[in-house]
């Protein structure tokens, strides 16, 4: 008997049922007087910001009165309060443009999640045992203050460290300022699928240290190197909106998409031409294309300007990168290389984009530079239909980033007195996301005092000594400054859409309160008492945008401040760095023992796994495999035949650093020597919906890093595949579906 039938009597309805009473148990509970004036059944829309990825889509939140079960002064009862019911894209917002992606639609479940932490917790059991006791906010904050004061009295301010995922916006600025004023190092940022390689490359090539915006709507030819820009990468909603218009927005003119990648992504599935390529050779292909273009005389090497001068042998027309050589490296026929190159050069405006796997190689940085140079060569940078860079609004704080996660872990593991005495963890989960060789969990064991602001118990926050659960994004003041996805300068802001459901507190407010109550106050002290004050002080002074003199009021109304700006041309013509060559990608593992390239990828539902706790996303059939509630590994049909593997068979993926089991999905869109696996499942501790479900591909990754930036090269591991026998727990939506021939045409 499964839990869905725990509730007994099936509902009945009949002739007289329309007269019957409403037998809901709430009637027995007492009703508290609401804190707000509410009219039942009326809904209103309030602005919001989606917190799930760094795209920062503007939301509108449908808010309606509803009855919530609460506990007041230890007394259980119900109170009527306005509750968020539905999220939609904010039609005015330059990034979301009234649309919202699959994850954004599910974001509302973060607020109503049954396993959300409802009050501060103090660890009582051993670390990781998950045994906590409820404590009051006063006690909790008192404990944290004692620790910080202790650091101060010992003159060890530099041994306070904060670990986070997002650094943007005023929230990021507040966090950085807090640490700076306290005397601690800059925040340590951990992201599995971070894009620092591309940022660094864009800085070198064009002088913009940020992700690019693709002006697809005005583009005629898009050449994507492994970038899943319609699925999970960068600013998916904005890119989907633009893509739709690229296809059908201009009567008679339809843009083309060519996707070069090793495993067919959701984006690749939309391509007019899908070009499978040997992993790690995307940069070589880009240079090969550039060679053909320059050779054909369609473009001069000088047209690429600074971006070109960063590439070895560019001014000579890349003599080393002939189509023949390119074919040898990439496995793509020389004629096809020539054709792709000329199409790209001639069907302007065209744009090339690189992200994901290609940049998660040991040669990621040169690869990014090569694609940048290719873009510059055809003059697509800063032009309509090309690669443009979102202008920063006034008062945009510079992103502050401290040392790499791996470095911090290593320092702690050196032994002796931990260099980190107090660690604050905010919305990141390195224990789940970091490769085992970094030994993050072990390192955290060595930290005397860990404080987590996480609203859920995950693999990292379960190690904390103190948990100060943050509000959900619907319950607190939020802000965001999009790095890409629009050509306007945007600063989003939103007031709480609803009152807090539980006894939680907004993390920025907590930081400000701590700053006030330290034995020796911060110097200089923060001029604001709440995050709201801070946001007001920032938005008040923004220039008017025709919304009237009250910029703050107008921004709260619309969900932010934005202003159209001219496209920004690439800066400077003098290379900031010396020219670099195109080294071969180095893979971990001997091809003899580990014959397959292993490609973990950001899953459509869970991204890097931070969303695996949302039931709607667990039950979302992955669009290509139709798998729900599962993790799986994708294998080329021929390879599967050779190894005698069928759909759903349990296989073991083994790298030099560990092995995981997973059910197989025979996947036509993947090379015979590559196997791919979505990231997201395989949580040990992450709410009732994700815990103990599936396997985590990150757990067998090699600790290889991209040398220029030191970020994890997550696509550079080789693995071996063994059939375990028996069925894996693979749940397919299409499994039971009678699909009609006519459907497929």
């Amino acid at each position, binding site marked *: 008997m499964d839990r*869905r*039938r725990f*509730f007994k009597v*099936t*509902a009945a309805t009949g002739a007289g049922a329309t007269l019957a009473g409403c037998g809901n148990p709430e009637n027995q509970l007492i009703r508290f007087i609401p804190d707000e004036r509410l009219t039942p059944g009326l809904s209103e829309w309030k602005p919001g910001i989606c917190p799930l990825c760094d795209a920062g889509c503007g939301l509108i939140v449908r808010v*309606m009165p509803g009855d919530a079960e609460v506990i007041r002064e230890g007394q259980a009862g119900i109170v009527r309060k306005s*509750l*968020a*019911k*539905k999220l*939609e894209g904010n039609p005015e917002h330059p990034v979301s443009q009234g*649309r*919202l*992606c699959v994850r954004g*639609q*599910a974001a*509302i*479940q973060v607020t*109503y999640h049954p396993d959300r932490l409802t009050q501060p917790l103090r660890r009582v059991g051993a670390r990781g045992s998950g045994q906590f006791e409820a404590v009051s906010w006063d006690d909790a904050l008192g404990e944290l203050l004692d620790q910080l004061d202790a650091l101060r009295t010992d003159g060890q301010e530099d041994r306070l460290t904060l670990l986070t995922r997002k650094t943007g916006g005023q929230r990021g600025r507040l966090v950085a300022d807090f640490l700076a004023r306290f005397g601690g190092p800059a925040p340590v940022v951990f992201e599995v699928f971070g894009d620092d390689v591309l940022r660094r490359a864009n800085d070198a090539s064009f002088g913009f240290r940020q992700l690019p915006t693709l002006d697809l709507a005005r583009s005629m030819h898009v050449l994507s190197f492994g970038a899943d820009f*319609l699925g999970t990468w960068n600013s*998916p*909603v904005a890119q989907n909106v633009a893509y*739709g218009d690229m*296809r*059908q927005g201009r009567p008679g003119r*339809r843009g083309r998409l060519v996707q070069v990648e090793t495993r*067919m992504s*959701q*984006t690749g*599935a*939309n391509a*007019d031409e899908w070009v*499978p390529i040997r992993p790690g050779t995307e940069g070589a292909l880009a240079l090969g294309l550039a060679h053909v273009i320059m050779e054909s005389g369609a473009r001069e090497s000088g047209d690429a300007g600074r971006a070109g001068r960063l590439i070895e042998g560019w001014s000579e027309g890349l003599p080393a990168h002939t189509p023949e050589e390119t074919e040898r490296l990439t496995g793509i026929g020389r004629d096809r290389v020539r054709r792709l190159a000329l199409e790209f050069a001639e069907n302007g405006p065209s744009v090339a984009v690189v992200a994901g796997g290609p940049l998660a190689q040991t040669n990621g940085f040169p690869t990014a530079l090569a694609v940048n140079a290719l873009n510059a060569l055809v003059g697509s940078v800063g032009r309509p239909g090309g690669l443009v860079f979102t202008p920063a609004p006034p008062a945009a704080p510079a992103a502050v980033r401290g040392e790499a996660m791996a470095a911090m872990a290593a320092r702690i593991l050196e032994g002796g007195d931990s260099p980190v005495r107090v660690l604050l963890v905010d919305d990141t989960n390195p224990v789940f996301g970091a490769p085992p060789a970094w030994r993050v969990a072990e390192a955290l064991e060595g930290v005397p005092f860990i404080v987590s602001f996480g609203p859920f118990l995950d693999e990292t926050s379960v190690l904390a000594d103190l948990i100060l659960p943050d509000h959900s994004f619907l319950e607190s003041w939020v802000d965001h400054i999009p790095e890409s996805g629009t050509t306007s300068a945007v600063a989003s802001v939103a007031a709480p859409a609803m009152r807090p*459901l539980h006894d939680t507190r907004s993390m920025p407010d907590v930081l400000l309160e701590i700053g006030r109550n330290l034995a020796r106050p911060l110097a200089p002290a923060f001029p604001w008492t709440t995050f709201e004050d801070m946001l007001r002080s920032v938005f008040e002074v923004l220039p008017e945008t025709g919304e009237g003199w009250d910029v703050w009021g107008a921004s709260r109304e619309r969900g932010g401040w934005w202003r159209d700006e001219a496209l920004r041309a690439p800066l400077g013509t003098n290379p900031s760095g010396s020219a670099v060559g195109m080294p071969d990608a180095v893979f971990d593992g001997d091809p003899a023992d580990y014959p397959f390239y292993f490609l973990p990828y950001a899953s459509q539902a869970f991204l890097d796994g931070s969303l695996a706790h949302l*039931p*709607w*996303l667990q*039950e*979302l*059939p992955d*669009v*290509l495999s139709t798998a*729900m*509630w599962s993790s799986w590994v994708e294998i*080329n049909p*021929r390879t599967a035949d050779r190894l005698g593997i069928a759909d759903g068979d349990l296989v073991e993926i083994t790298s030099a650093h560990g092995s995981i089991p997973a059910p197989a999905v025979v996947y*036509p869109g*993947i*090379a015979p020597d590559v196997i791919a696996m979505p990231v997201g499942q395989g949580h040990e501790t992450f709410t*009732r919906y994700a815990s103990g479900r599936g396997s985590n591909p990150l757990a067998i990754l090699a600790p290889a890093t991209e040398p220029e930036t030191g970020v994890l090269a997550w696509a550079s591991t080789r693995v071996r595949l063994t059939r375990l026998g028996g069925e894996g727990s693979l*749940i397919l*939506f299409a*499994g039971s*579906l009678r*699909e*009609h021939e*006519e*459907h*497929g*045409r």
Partner: protein
Amino acid sequence: MRQDDNQTGATPAYKWGMAVDLDRCTGCEACVVACRAENNVPTAGAEAAARSRAIHWIRVERYWDGEFPDVRVRYRPVFCQQCDSAPCEPVCPTYASYHTEEGLNAQVYNRCIGTRYCANACPYNVRFFNFDNPVWEKPLDLQLNPDVSIREVGVMEKCTFCIQRINEAKIDAGAMGTRIEDGALQPACAQSCTANALVFGDLNDPESAVSRLSRSPRGEKLLSDLGTAPSVTYLGRED
């Protein structure tokens, strides 16, 4: 001043329809969760899903084509086609599944006795049956949309073109004494559709976006040879 004059007259004021541009659809599946959130579609959970009892009023079907390396995929969002001669309607013994004057295949939950005949008759597999009583682990239930009823065990359910939004819009238009203007009313899937592939509107208004798209030479009906006369037109890919 009557928001429902249209339904008493000889020709109904509205004929709801949808156009799906497969050249725009990117398989992002925003529609799938948007529908779930709007229409109180219960979450089946892993065990029930494994017994293929998961309910999705809208799904994105994908069709593999060819072999590596020349492999193609085509996406197709599939939901109730709101057929004008619907196989699901004549078979229902209690009129729980019936045709409204505005061209919708209505499913009247309280009239449904659970013969499941309609679902067997439907060639599109878009009707779903509540084999178990749905549960929401508190406080997930606070998200439930009060404008949509919660279906109990033993009743059939399916896409309604967000009838609650249609009725709301009609009430508003009635208050103004006007028609619902094109684009003012969208079901959850179309509103969320990131690439603007789903377009909803009134087929009786020849100038509405959906009417114009439905006349496109790329247009085709799903399983048209069955003669079900769907209100949904699919615009094929252009390559």
